[in-house]
């Protein structure tokens, strides 16, 4: 009887080692890859200089909601949502929501001209070398990351946003 119990134990141990190895592999292959930036987790910190030479560090914005937008001047949906973002920014900036618009490594001239022509007043910064985009694993533009006052990611949205949706998001991350 003792022998049989031991055999069952040995079998259970071996099988669980094998199955957990397989389980981990499947997990790493299919789920873990996209884990870099994920809803519910803390947003990776970064620091960038805006067009006026002022430095913005994400972690300094804790206590405020952050509407983090990745964009490019050549990208049509980005250009389309800019005026709407500006509009909502004006209504929400006193309610504790900040917009940080991170440009995808373009020339200062192009970004400057763009920002002026749209009359953007929120901080616009250039991700020189693409480090922040890499940190956030940004694919298509525009991509918007919604960060709440605790610095946690509330939602990630790929593609252009309309005014209604932006307002909803702003309300959502408002502290």
């Amino acid at each position: 009887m003792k022998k049989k119990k031991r055999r069952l134990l040995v079998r259970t141990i071996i099988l669980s080692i094998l199955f957990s190895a397989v389980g981990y592999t499947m997990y790493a292959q299919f789920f873990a890859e996209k884990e870099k930036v994920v809803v519910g987790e803390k947003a990776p910190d970064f620091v960038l200089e805006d067009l006026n030479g002022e430095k913005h560090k994400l972690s300094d914005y804790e206590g405020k909601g952050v509407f983090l937008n990745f964009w490019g001047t050549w990208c049509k949906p980005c250009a389309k949502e800019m005026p709407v973002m500006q509009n909502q920014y004006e209504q929400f900036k006193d309610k504790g929501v900040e917009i940080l618009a991170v440009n995808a490594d373009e020339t200062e001239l192009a970004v400057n001209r763009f920002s002026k022509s749209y009359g953007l007043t929120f901080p616009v910064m250039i991700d020189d070398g693409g480090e922040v985009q890499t940190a956030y694993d940004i694919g298509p533009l525009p991509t918007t990351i919604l960060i709440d006052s605790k610095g946690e990611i509330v939602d990630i949205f790929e593609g252009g946003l309309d005014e209604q949706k932006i307002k909803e998001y702003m309300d959502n991350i408002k502290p």
Partner: protein
Amino acid sequence: MKEVKCECGHVNPHGTILCEACGKPTNGENSKKLLDMRYEGSARRSQTYNKTVIDHIWNFFSSVKVGIWLIVLTLIASAFGTIYPQEAYIPINADPSTYYEEQYGTLGALYYQLGFHNLYSSWWYLLLIASIGISLVICSLDRVIPLHRALKKQLVTRHESFLQRQRFFSVTENPLESDINKVEERLKKRGYRVKKEEGNLLGEKGRFSRWGPYVNHIGLIIFLIGAMLRVVPGMYIDKTMWLREGETKAIPGTNGEYFLENNQFIYEEYGKDSDEVFQKTIDRVGAVAKNYQTDVTLYKGQEGKIAGEDQKLVKQKDFPIKVNEPLKFDGYAVYQVDYRLNELSEMKLSLDDKQSGESFGTISIDLHNPKDTYELKQGYRVEILSYFPDFYFNEEGNPDTKTKTPSNPAFVFKMFTPDRQEGETSFVAIRQNVEPLGENKYKMTFAGIDTKNVTGLTVHKDSTLWILGLGGLIFMIGVIQGMYWNHRRIWVRHTAQGLFMASHTNKNWFGLKRELEKVIEGTAIVMPEDQQEKKKGGDKA
């Protein structure tokens, strides 16, 4: 679940077919059929206990039949994956959801629908491979342990019926003791380990050959573990990076730890008129590439810094990366794989008087970092109002840019001169010069370009390689062990009916026969007969 006590006194585990010690068939069957010597007739545990869920799972994977089915299924699935190209090998810009249908019709669409376009990394394919791995482990464990026990416990004096039912068997009546000694001597000379017991002999050699398949399986399992480790973050990296001459970028996959600067990209061809090789080919195709080379400088960044933060790069080394001569550092290797020659980097324009053609100076615009204003001599200056790196006219008919790469740059300039204080506006693109706000006195004249080469590199890191190598090596050792050695045993036993001589090998029966002939040469011992051949009438020798 009773244990079985043999008449020789040995207690065998339940499920044993041949007594571990003396070899007597446990079912007491008295037939004349040859014995099935697989696994020495030991009890394969899996086949006997079937109580809990664990046992059921265990027994499922312990079955060789199941293992073979898994392999067959994997083979069939793998074959399916080769019918049409995998997703990684279709053109880069193609959309897989339409590409397969466009290229291969309905079958292509079905192929895509069923996920065969990404077969080798699909969950079910990986599960099949994993099941083979599990089956391999459990099958081996379930067989190697009882086999090892049986071979360790065998007696010299085997049961008569065990000997009689061996494939090679003979009876010699009235044997001579000297003959037996002769046999013993010869066996020893031939490398047999001979054990003696009451005048009976057991000669055995090459037992380690029996472990060959299991060593082989260990190699396979190590190989599978290596393949599995590839998905562990940091173990396996395969990324590409494009680097302009003069540019410094973080090396992907190194978590911002390492940076690479492209000092120069060199593309060389074999000379046309020199007496070099490939002359005929050069005449035929025009050019033959001789060298692709990127001269780089490797830097190390600061650890633990946050993205976007300024940092001091520490130079590590200069290195010329050539095809097959990668830059190696810290487990990474950076290979030369692609290039783009002569990408626009700088554009030169001069400010001219349209009528007189007089020039008031030349500006050179860095297309990756243009300035707002370019000052020229004595009150002349040029401002850039808009910059379109990849210019085209959008749906509204306005100039716009398609990408951020300066492949077709265009500018809107404002030219300030002493006699045109308010400035004149001019739109300049390659071979275009438009005056959108009416006739100008001055114009920007194209005065040349500067180009830079762009290099395409692959960053590679594979920390699993040595595990795969080790697995492969052990696999080969197992194969050799099982292939080039045979496990041969020769039994000699005195019985009432005379001297029994029987012999068994796991393979190469012909070799065993020759060996037996040599061993009994010149003795009165009867040459063991191949009972299988005799029974089948020699038709399947």
